[in-house]
């Protein structure tokens, strides 16, 4: 991504962008993975069918949803279950779900579906094959599910206020891709145009899951209500997204994939820099921005959370929205780099929530400047893994100082600076975080504190001559290999490293989860604890059969139905 030539305003400094509180305030933008997928499917005129829908009166059975692109077909194979309420858990440690899914590469035969029916409902305890690209499951939002079924069965439409506030009928609790539990490796699809960008398999699986859930709720209402059951109004069903309930697995992901994570952040930063560099905005561009801003206000008004941290952030965001409105009343945005002025102003006037919302929104009028960057979001440089042993120790030292200066000043032996440890439990291998000094977990610590490790490597390098190659140091100190590898990635991946303490007593893992989820395109982040978050996906999006070029992109910004 060598596009600095077109850009006069520079990308924001990684030292600013990569702070946890800011990463924990990121919002979706037009580069998000869901929107990349829906734009592509509309542009390429994908077609969708439902060849199987074999669900009984108890809501148990199977269904298949196919999506056909220009070169290939992908099928969601769905299994619906009758789950006792006491088993409904969104944790990794759950063992049964309301619905389970696999995304099949192609069109499954009866034999494939039978094979999957013996494995997919078991999730981690089953096996899928190289023909499957993802494995996932979902649980009902009991409250909204019951309300929608009852309303429709009684011949009435559900209450839209409840739909706005919950946002989904089911939430996925894991969508496993990339070779997990026997599925195909990422390499199988990495060179296909439709799956080259990150997480397109998973986003497609969720897109089709949403159609299945809508059909299932209608089916259950029809079973209960018989002839008097109403058909769910498409204007209402559009506001039903798919939820997702996410724990700590996503935090290790962004630490363990520094080049990939860098590419996401750097692409967004490049997009922001390009738009800030626009000298004069056209009337149409200004109108588009004002439109999505107003629609964002509606979306924020539906955003609910009871978690004290998010409650405070939402208050600040709502205050920010008023300030932005006031700014937009006074500034006609036409000249003198209007977007740069807006961003500069936001940095002095708004919370990080508001700043990042604006930074995402200014990209909307500029698909021509921004969307092409999406092709740079995958990690195609496997060679970045290989350490350059010829690099001098002096250079390694300089690199550590550049990225981790703040960490070198920290006393890592002080309790509050290393209070937490990340580990994997033997219980279904659930990723967890605990209190290092209160629980017997430090022997099992995962390497998820790169800054602490960088400070340790810097210390260990202390007695070594600047001119020596780092290979000599690494031969004697293999315990620093993982750190030197990361350090050597920083020049080409300056946004790959979180510039905060990931094991301090005040760390909020939800900040890491939100950073990742924002790139999926998630909205309405609702933390349930400091290490658990619910979100909404595809709310407002067209269903497969409704998808057109007109509705494929801006669906994430709601317009109140007339």
């Amino acid at each position, binding site marked *: 991504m060598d596009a600095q030539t077109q850009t006069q305003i520079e990308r924001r400094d990684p030292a600013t962008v990569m702070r946890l509180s800011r990463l924990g305030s990121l919002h979706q933008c037009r580069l998000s993975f869901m929107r990349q997928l829906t734009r592509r499917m509309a542009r390429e005129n994908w077609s969708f069918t439902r060849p199987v829908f074999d669900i009984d009166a108890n809501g148990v059975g199977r269904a298949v949803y196919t999506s056909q692109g220009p070169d290939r077909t992908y099928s969601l194979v769905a299994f619906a279950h009758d789950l006792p309420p006491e088993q409904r858990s969104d944790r990794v440690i759950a063992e049964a779900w309301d619905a389970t899914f696999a995304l099949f590469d192609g069109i499954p035969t009866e034999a494939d579906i039978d094979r999957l029916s013996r494995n997919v409902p078991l999730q981690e305890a089953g096996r899928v094959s190289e023909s499957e690209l993802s494995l996932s499951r979902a649980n009902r939002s009991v409250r909204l599910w019951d309300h929608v079924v009852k309303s429709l069965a009684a011949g009435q439409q559900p209450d839209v206020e409840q739909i706005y506030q919950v946002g989904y009928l089911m939430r996925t609790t894991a969508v496993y891709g990339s070779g997990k539990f026997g599925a195909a490796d990422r390499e199988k699809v990495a060179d296909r145009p439709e799956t080259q960008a990150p997480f397109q398999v998973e986003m497609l699986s969720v897109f089709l899951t949403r159609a299945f859930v809508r059909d299932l709720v209608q089916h259950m209402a029809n079973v209960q209500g018989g002839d008097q059951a109403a058909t769910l109004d498409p204007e209402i069903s559009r506001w039903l997204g798919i939820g997702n309930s996410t724990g700590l697995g996503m935090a290790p992901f962004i630490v363990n994939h520094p080049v990939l994570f860098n590419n996401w952040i750097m692409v967004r930063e490049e997009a922001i820099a390009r738009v800030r560099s626009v000298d004069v905005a056209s009337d149409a561009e200004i109108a588009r921005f004002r439109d999505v801003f107003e629609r964002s206000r509606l979306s924020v008004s539906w955003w609910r959370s009871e978690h004290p941290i998010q409650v405070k952030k939402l208050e600040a965001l709502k205050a920010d929205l008023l300030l932005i409105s006031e700014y937009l009343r006074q500034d006609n945005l036409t000249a003198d780099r209007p977007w740069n002025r807006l961003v500069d102003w936001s940095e002095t006037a708004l919370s990080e929530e508001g700043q990042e919302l604006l930074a995402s929104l200014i990209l909307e009028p500029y698909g021509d400047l921004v969307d092409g960057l999406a092709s740079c979001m995958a990690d195609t440089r496997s060679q970045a893994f290989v350490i350059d*042993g010829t690099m001098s120790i002096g250079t390694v030292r300089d690199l550590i100082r550049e990225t981790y200066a703040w960490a070198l000043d920290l006393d890592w032996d002080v309790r509050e600076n290393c209070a937490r440890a990340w580990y994997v439990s*033997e219980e279904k291998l659930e990723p967890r975080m605990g209190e290092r000094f209160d629980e017997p977990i430090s022997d099992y610590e995962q390497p998820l504190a790169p800054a602490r490790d960088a400070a340790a490597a810097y210390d260990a390098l202390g007695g070594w001559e600047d001119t020596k190659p780092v290979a*000599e140091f690494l*031969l004697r100190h293999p315990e620093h*290999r*993982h750190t030197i*590898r990361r350090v050597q990635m920083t020049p080409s991946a300056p946004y790959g490293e979180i510039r905060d303490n990931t094991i301090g007593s005040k760390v909020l893992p939800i900040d890491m989860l939100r950073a990742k989820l924002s790139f999926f395109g998630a909205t309405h982040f609702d933390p349930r604890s400091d290490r658990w978050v619910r979100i909404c996906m595809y709310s407002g999006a067209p269903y497969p059969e409704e998808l057109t070029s007109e509705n494929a992109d801006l669906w994430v910004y709601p317009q109140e139905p007339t």
Partner: protein
Amino acid sequence: MNFSLNEMEATAKRATRGAGYSWGQAEEASKAARWLCAQGLDGAGILSSLLERGLASDPATHRPGQIDRLWQGEEALCPLSAGPLLSDAAHLLKTSPIEMRNVAVPALMLPFARHAASILNEALTIEIDTVQSVVGEDWLMAPDSLPKTAHTVVVSRGGAPTATREQETRAYPDPQDWDMLNRYAHRTYAPATEESRLLGAGSGLSDND
């Protein structure tokens, strides 16, 4: 049963760490095992036979004493020490071949020779006693099985493959090896306790809402 290469890699990483190696070496062992499987070699068997030898308990005796002469340890050389060093110090091959003595599980040198080949942008020949392999950035010529230990390993520039190995997209580990890797991997998992279950993850709230 077959496994995805990603499963092979993830299991190998945990197993290597569980056997006492550093995280960086575990990362490298996992990529190495994955690559061996992709070449149709027995990555799981090769790695588990190394982990069984327990060399990580005394790493200093299993690494080369110096870089610029014959690579030799006080005891058998560990390929997770000599291998990464071969990749780190690939430039030395420009001057002369690299020779090592008494190498444990020398098949594990191949993935690192491949890194070195990629760095130097040319094929490398690896002689494991009398057995010759040739490796490039994305191909390998090697027999199906290699000795468990080598008296001498010599890595030198150049070499023309007569037949390269077919690429595999899945791993087919022997169940015993796979179990052994998982036993080592298990050492990295914290015991299940009620406290950990309640506090370590999740929301502490009901999901039945």
